[in-house]
Each structure stands twice: as C-alpha cells, then as structure tokens.
C-alpha cells in the first residue's frame, strides 16, 4: 500500500535584474533628470533647508526653557519677552503642561490621570494586535474601562472622590473618543443593517430618518441641543451630567456617519454572497456575522479609519459647552496674561499630541488593510 510520489525538481529561478539603484543614481534619475527638474529640486531644497534652519534656530537655539520667579512666587516672563519673535518660549509649556494635560483635575491627584492615559494607550495597543482578537478581549475592555472609571472618580480604595466637572485635558479627549467610537460602531452596524432590511419596513424607515436627521445638522448644533435645550425640559436640579450629555451626542452623531460607511461596504458585496449564505440555510444573524460583515467591513477599512480620525479631532468641539478637553485646556492656559503672547508654542504641543494619535491610527489601518486584503490581492 505505498503510493509513489513523483518529485519534480523545481528549476532554479533566475536572479531578477538588479532594479534598486544606489542613492546617487536614484537622485540623478528622480531629482536631476532634466534641467527643469534640477531647478525645481534646487529651489525646493533651498526653501526646505532655510525653513528647517529657521525652525531649529527658533525652537532649540534661541529658545527660553524656564523663567525665573520673583520673591512672591510669581513667574517673571521678561526672559521670554526679550527673545519674542526670535526664539520659542518653552517656559509656558513648563509652567502649564500639567494643566493642559489634566485640566482642573486636583493637582495632587493628577497621577491618576496619568495612569488613565497609560491604560488607554495599553488598551489601544493590545486591541490592535490580531493575536488578541478573541472573546477575552471584551473582558479586557470591560476590566480596563472599569479601572479607568474607578481611577477618574475615586471614592473607593482610599482614593479621593473627584466629580466629573473637574475632569479635563487628555483623559477627557480619550474618554470622549474611545467611548464614543466603541458605542457608535456597533450601533452603526445595526443601523446600516436596518437600513438595508427588506423584510422590516418600519425598522428601515426609522433607520433612514435617524441617519438623515443626524447627518442634516452639524455636530456643534447637536452639542448645543444636548447642553442648552435638553436641561430646559428636565425638572430643576435633576440634570444628567454635562459630560454624559456630550458623550451621548457624540455617539449618536458618529453612529450615523459610520452607518453610511458600513452600508457602502454592504452594497459592494455581490449578491451571490447573500444567496450562497441563504442556500446554506444560515439564519439572518449567522449570515451577517459569518459571511457578509467580515467581507463588507474589510472593504471599508480606509473610510472607517478616516471617520475615526475625524471624530477623534471633533471631540474638541465640546469646547463650546464648557468642557475642558485637551484643546480647551490649552486655550485656557493661554488666557493667563503673562503667556498670552506665546500661543504658537502651546498649539505646537497640542498639534504634536493630536498628530501622534491620528498618525498611529492611519499607520495601523494601512497595516491592517495589507494583512486582511491578502486574499483579494493575490
């Protein structure tokens, strides 16, 4: 009972022609290919160099890092005033960075805010790794978010109680965007499915009305509704917290946009996929969960991440209802008269923080697309 297998030796592959060039060769073909190309390269190179030198000079060489304080403990910005226009005044960041990061959270308790930021980052990293994409991840999320709640509120384990209205800075931005997207995404999937439902016209109607109503108004007006109109309908003294109201408004808004993105993915699938699932005798939820959604969501990764990034930045709109998120804390820090003239430094720092988060999201989505899209590309 032995089968013979014929091994056919693979012919050795010919080495491909050397395609990569040395840096000099690369520069000659790409940057100095023609006379015009050379001129443009030189001009752009000159401007870039000039800008870089100017920026380094401003940010590092002529800059002031700390300022003295007088006998009464008041900071004296004279050193910054002297270099104004030539060098950066990083002393403003040195003085205000804790306020910008944590807002009005009690000063002695701000280590809790720092741990919360670290926990959020860890949560993002763990959720990003495909190796952890199991049921347990849901428990990790619940555990982490509970810990975050305990840390922010306190009141147990000997932690001082900190009411929500004192929360601020980066934790608020992370809370609003993480909870916002975590709740909005499942809601969006349901709404998208509801809108494409053929058997439940009432559900379809409700979903269409919801999406169109929410998409028809700017986020800022929803936040206004949540913060200005809503309390008027409630009995005096019985008000859901301002932060909670803003959070709900953000969830509803994000869900409507994400639903349309998901619907795009659903529509891109050929009808054969649905029919094949039906032919297998799957129930509606099995069909959606096992066949349709995995394929549909994969196609819409780029627009999904686009919406995520947009919403991460849109959370800063809570500024108009008096919540101290990261951007608002920065602006309030700048209201201090001695620092009013140094907004550039503070905005640079804020831009850097926002950029880190958004860039990480963008890079991650590219990696995910590559990994999940292998079957399609081949």
């Amino acid at each position, binding site marked *: 009972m032995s089968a013979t297998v014929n091994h056919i030796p693979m012919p050795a592959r010919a080495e491909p022609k050397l395609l990569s060039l040395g840096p000099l060769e690369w520069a000659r073909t790409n940057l100095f290919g023609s006379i015009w190309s050379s001129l443009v390269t030189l001009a752009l190179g000159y401007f870039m160099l000039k800008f870089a030198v100017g920026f380094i000079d401003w940010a590092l060489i002529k800059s002031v890092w700390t300022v003295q304080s007088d006998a009464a403990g008041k900071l004296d910005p004279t050193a910054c005033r002297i270099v104004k226009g030539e060098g950066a005044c990083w002393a403003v960041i040195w003085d205000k960075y804790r306020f910008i990061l944590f807002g009005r959270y009690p*000063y002695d308790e701000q280590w809790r805010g720092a741990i919360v930021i670290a926990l959020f980052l860890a949560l993002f990293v763990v959720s990003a790794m495909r190796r952890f994409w199991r049921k347990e991840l849901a428990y990790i999320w619940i555990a982490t978010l509970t810990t975050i709640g305990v840390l922010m509120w306190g009141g147990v384990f000997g932690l001082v109680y900190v009411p929500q*209205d004192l929360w601020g800075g980066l934790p608020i931005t992370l809370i609003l965007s993480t909870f916002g997207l975590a709740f909005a995404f499942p809601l969006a999937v349901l709404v998208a499915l509801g809108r494409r439902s053929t058997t439940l016209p009432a559900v379809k109607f409700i979903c269409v009305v919801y999406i169109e109503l929410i998409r028809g108004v700017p986020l800022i007006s929803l936040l206004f509704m949540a*913060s200005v*109109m809503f309390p008027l309908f409630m009995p005096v003294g019985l008000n859901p917290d301002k932060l909670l109201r803003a959070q709900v408004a953000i969830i509803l808004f994000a869900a409507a946009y994400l639903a349309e993105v998901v619907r795009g993915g659903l529509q891109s699938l050929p009808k054969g996929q649905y029919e094949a699932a039906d032919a297998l005798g799957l129930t509606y939820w099995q069909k959606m969960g096992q066949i349709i959604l995995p394929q549909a969501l994969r196609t819409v990764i780029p627009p999904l991440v686009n919406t995520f990034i947009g919403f991460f930045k849109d959370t800063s709109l809570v500024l*108009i209802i*008096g919540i101290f998120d990261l951007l608002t804390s920065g602006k*309030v820090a700048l209201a201090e008269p001695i620092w*009013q*003239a140094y*907004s550039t430094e503070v905005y640079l720092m804020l831009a850097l923080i926002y950029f880190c988060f958004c860039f990480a999201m963008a890079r991650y989505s590219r990696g995910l697309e590559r990994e999940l899209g292998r079957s399609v590309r081949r």
Partner: protein
Amino acid sequence: MNRLFAGALAAGALLTATAAFAQSGSATIDAIVKRGELNCGVAGNSPMFSLPDSQGVMRGLDADSCRAIAAAILGDAKKTKFIPTTAQNRFTALQSGEVDLLYRSTTWTLGREGNLGAMFASVNFYDGTGFLVKASLKVKSAKELDGATVCVAPGTSTELAVADYFRVHKMKFTPVLIQDLSELQNAYLSGRCDTYSTDSSGLAGFRFQQGPKAVEHILLPDIISKEPLGAMVRKGDDKFFDIVRWTYFATLIAEEYGITQANVDEALKSTVPEIRRLMGLEGDMGKALGVDNKWAYNAIKQTGNFGEGWDRNVTPYGVPRGINNLWNNGGLQYAPPMR
C-alpha cells in the same frame, strides 16, 4: 399607651426633620445646604475674573465672590463647585438650575433682567469700553480718532459700542476684526491698527503686560459705554437673592471698617454697633437672611473683604481701582447700612 408615645415621638422627629430642611424659607438655599455645595457658574477662561492657575485652582474676583457666598451659606468657602459656562450656555445653565447663580462677568442690562427670568444681585466690577493708543500717535481724546483703524474682537458688545460711538460723533473708522485675542493684540502692536478697543480693565491689563514698554501706550480717558458686571440669580427666590447681595455688601462694609481676613477675630470684640451686627454678635441678621448668624464673619474670615479680593486678583494685572473704589474714596462701591 406605649404605642401612642412612640407615634408622637416619631411625628415629633418628622416635624423637626422637616423644620431642619425648610428653615431658610428658600428653595435654592435648602438645595445648597442639602447638596453641601454651592454651584457657581463662572467663565473659567477670563483673567482677573475666573481662570484656573497652573494647578487647576480657580482664581479671580468672580471666583472669590462665589467662595464668599459658599462661606456665608455653608460656613466653608471650599464647598464651592465652579461650573465653567460659555457666553452661549450661561443663561440656560442658570434657568435650568444647573448653577445656583452666575458670577460670569455678565453685564447688567434691562434686556437681560426683563427677558431672561433672572435678576442681578450685585455689581462686583464697574467696567466700560475704552481705547488704547500708542503714545507716538499723540492723541489725547477719543474724539480725535476720526478716520482711525480700530482693532476689535467681532461679535462683542465692544464692537457695537465702538460703532455707536463713531456714528454719534459723526466720525469715520475702519474696524479690523480678529477673533483670536493674541492675534488681535499682535495686530495692534505691529501697527495694523491705530487703536485697540475692549473693556478698559482688559486694556489696562494688556498695557501692564508690556512690561517696560507700557509707557509707549496710553489709555484714553473716554469710557464710551457702561459695563456693570455682577452676580445673576433666578427670579422668584428673594431669600437667595438677599444672601447673594448682602454677602457682597458685607465685604464692602468690612472694607469700610478696615476689617480684613487677618484682623477679623479682633472685630469680634468690637463695641461699634454696626460691626457687632456684621459679626453676628447682635441683631440676628443672619437669621433674618435664613442662614447662620456668623455668615458675614465666615465670608470675611475665609475670603477677605472687597479690597483684599481686588488686591489679590486684579492689582497683579496692573488695573487701577478707579471707579471701583469705595464711595468714600471717590468710587461707586457703596453698601447700604447694616441695621
């Protein structure tokens, strides 16, 4: 028999409990006492009035005025919860009960008092729109500003006041409208405008921040609008209105008699009748207001008199006391007698 006695005891306890809650005769004060906290609506981004310092503690004249009221009602200035409100949502926050009162550098106007169901209980800052010019321009009065370019923030009452002023005096001007404060100030400093206009307190503070270069700028003597800034409460709770207004008056009376945070305990031994009434030693003034008789003592002990609040919050910004002096010092701050 025993049962009857227990029933009577329970009824008595119930009555006492009700009395303990309803003793002030004001729904707002009762709610504050029950909550153990005063919810005070402030701006939260306005230097001199209310602005968190680097450690997140709210500082400023409005913030201290809130603390004084918390001290008067609850006996502890630390039991103040500051709720930052924006120019758009401040009145709703008051109407909906989210805040007990507003100390948000809000101008007292007829429209606001007539239309919004709220009323003004005090004026802790008399302000007005002014002009700042460069000394090199050699302008002595706002009437010489015909044809000037004016740096002003768009959508503010300043913008309206400036437009009205130039129209009334049949002069021409070119507004330069910039929303961002530091950009607006840079535009003035770099010479894009001849003059920079906002509340005179803001102008004085801005001039002071120029350090040694302050002498290059002149605050013109003309004040072209009245901006009395103060506390706003809901209509319909007169007892609470009284306590907000009289806490402010108490800080004025304390300044008048030279009672400060440091020497308030000596005032307890005073024989002057009005001081004795202020300190709650006689007259039962606190009881009449629905709070503890030591209300004013607590407020002064914990937040100081009006002048101290000014020195702590406003003087560092280089704003002169001016019309905010006491009446007997040439200003407008005047408290009715406490008797």
